[in-house]
């Protein structure tokens, strides 16, 4: 009995301590928190306003300033390296992609977010929680958006062409569907114009247990069958004539969605935000499906993430705010209303709120969670940023017919050995 009483007392004390600790974070004078993002601050500012509405104590304790630190994840990561190198003040919350996580995590630079995540842990999709967890069991990143592979398509166009995404199971089916849609409607179901982005390759590789390095960090891939097949697949798409020659992120790409020239996209979940902006008058015409059966699994860069550096001025406060930001079920509904990002929470899977979507319809929630079951990230090495520049160049040279497949892979391997040496060194 005495032991039980002592245990209850100890637990009570612990709970009080943790409670006091959490409360302490929001005590004292108001501070300025910096949130580093890329491209645009507008959406983040809207989301932050909702966050303060949901958690007034955040507004009383902190002014969150959203700052653009690059025009993409690579740009933000570069800025962080420069700040770390110059020993300058780091932003409190940093948005990067999972591709950059390994570099900062392996260097021991990240703040352990375990305590802040603890209240929400049971509700997080296991595959996502696994990616958030470091080798020592600590949690070092939070999902801004999990990025499983999702196929977005125009229902009206596919109906007219007699294409049902569920019947498209193989690469050959996919090419055939592309031809059918183009013949029937004049639109394209995909674009494979060069230069392709590294993520086009990584979306294929991430589902197939491939790595550029062996377990020691040495580069060995010139004779790897998985990589060879991925290159050949993209070459088949590129040369098939069934897909548009437009390249991604060009002015033509956006215009092709706006005009309806592109009626589908085999990509990752993040594409929905762009469709909402680029083709707002096509609401209700778009839906989504899982990738063709043969190509499922994997992701584009795993997920968009938030990280907090150990040396950030208000790391503990930033961690607590970001945990609320990422997982509070009520707040996430507000986020969904702003940018259509569904949180990777088990409770969101059955939450009818996410089934309501004027643009993509109820399929968005269903497909997102189905695809999340296959979520898998490429095992990013700390030097992945350098690797992707090299492999992308040889991929595009190969697609344009400037180099043979053997030479492309052999030269890419030689360049990685020359430029990077060892991925973990």
């Amino acid at each position: 009995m005495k032991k039980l009483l002592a245990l209850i007392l100890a637990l009570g004390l612990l709970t009080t301590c943790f409670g006091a600790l959490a409360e302490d974070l929001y005590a004292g004078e108001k501070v300025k928190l910096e949130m580093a993002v890329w491209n645009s601050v507008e959406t983040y500012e809207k989301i932050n306003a909702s966050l303060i509405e949901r958690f007034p104590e955040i507004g009383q304790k902190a002014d969150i300033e959203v700052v653009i630190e690059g025009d993409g994840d690579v740009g933000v990561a570069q800025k962080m390296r420069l700040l770390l190198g110059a020993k300058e003040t780091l932003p409190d919350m940093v948005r990067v992609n999972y591709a950059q996580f390994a570099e900062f995590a392996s260097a021991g630079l990240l703040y352990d977010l375990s305590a802040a995540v603890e209240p929400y842990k049971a509700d997080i999709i296991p595959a996502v929680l696994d990616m958030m967890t470091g080798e020592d069991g600590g949690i070092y990143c939070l999902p801004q958006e999990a990025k499983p592979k999702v196929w977005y398509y125009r229902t009206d166009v596919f109906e007219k062409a007699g294409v049902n995404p569920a019947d498209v199971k193989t690469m050959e089916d996919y090419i055939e569907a592309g031809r059918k849609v183009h013949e029937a409607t004049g639109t394209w179901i995909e674009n494979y114009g060069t230069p392709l982005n590294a993520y086009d390759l990584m979306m294929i590789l991430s589902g197939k247990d491939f790595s550029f390095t062996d377990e020691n960090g040495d580069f060995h891939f010139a004779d790897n069958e998985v990589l060879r097949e991925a290159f050949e697949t993209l070459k088949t798409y590129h040369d098939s004539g069934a897909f548009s020659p437009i390249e991604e992120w060009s002015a033509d790409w956006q215009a092709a969605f706006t005009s309806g020239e592109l009626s589908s996209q085999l990509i990752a979940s993040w594409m929905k935000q762009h469709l909402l902006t680029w083709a707002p008058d096509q609401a209700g015409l778009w839906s989504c499906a899982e990738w063709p059966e043969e190509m499922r699994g994997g992701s584009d860069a795993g997920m968009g993430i938030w990280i907090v550096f150990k040396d950030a001025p208000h790391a503990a406060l930033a961690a607590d705010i970001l945990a609320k930001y990422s997982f509070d079920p009520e707040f996430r509904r507000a986020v969904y209303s702003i940018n259509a990002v569904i949180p990777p929470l088990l409770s969101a899977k059955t939450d009818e709120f996410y089934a309501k979507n004027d643009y993509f319809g109820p399929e968005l929630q269903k497909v997102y969670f189905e695809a999340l079951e296959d979520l898998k990230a490429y095992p990013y090495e700390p030097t992945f940023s350098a690797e992707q520049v090299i492999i992308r160049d040889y991929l595009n040279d190969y697609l344009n017919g400037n180099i043979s497949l053997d030479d492309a892979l052999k030269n890419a391997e030689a360049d990685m050995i020359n430029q990077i040496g060892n991925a973990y060194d």
Partner: protein
Amino acid sequence: MAKPKAARGAARYPKRQIAPYLFIFPFLLSFLAFFLVPVVYSVVISLMKYKGYGTMKYVGFDNYRRLFTYNAMWTSLLNTLEYFILAMIPVMILAFLLAVVVRSHALTRWQKVYKPLLFMPQVCAVVASSLVFKVIFGTNVGAINQILGTSFNFLGDTKLMKLPVICMLIWRNTGWYFIIFLSGLTTISDDLLDAAKIDGATSVQTMFHVTIPVMKPIFKLTFITYAIGAFKLYTEPNLILSKEEAPLSVAPFVNMITTNINGGSLGMASAAGWILVLFILALTVMQMRMFKEGE
């Protein structure tokens, strides 16, 4: 032996001896802090394996060796030379001809309109201009293809990708060099030109035997400054040809630096920076020799 008068003055008034150094001290301090120390630090880093954080590992000249045996470095150097030469020739010819036309009083009217118009591309933000050129050269939405009724893939075909960048460099730089040439031409005395006229020289003869020889120092200055600027080319090709960094097959040399910073290899980035300095130095010496031989 008697001391010189000046030395005697300095000994009598030590403050006078210190005063000049005090005047240049702020410059020396900033020179040391913002130039000399970073330069030395950069040399040191170029001999290290260093991510920008964590520990540095001494690797000697390995970073330089790796770069010199990296095909992409030579490709990027050739790309930079291509951007430099293919843009510089039209820029210099156009700018000089425009300056001559304006100076010759053939176009006396509307100077207040066309001079700012010619200079305006220099004032426009380079990022905004690059994004506009990206749209102009688009395959479907691009003005060029729409006017010509073609569908050239200027932004995706490696054989054509340098063209939009070169066009932008010409558009952007002509106005700047026009102003420099015009100010150079105004230093040529009217008496000299009148004398050539009285001697029976035609306009073309005056141009080749009077104007161009007198303008030689200006040409020297413009070629050297253009070359230095051209080797530091970065924004235009990267913004026009890509979302983040241009493919290595069309990338300028500076991408060797930024790609290595992106890849977390500050040592290699510093080494690439020093290789760039050596190339610029070699090119400047070559240009100066060429002008010297001409003299």
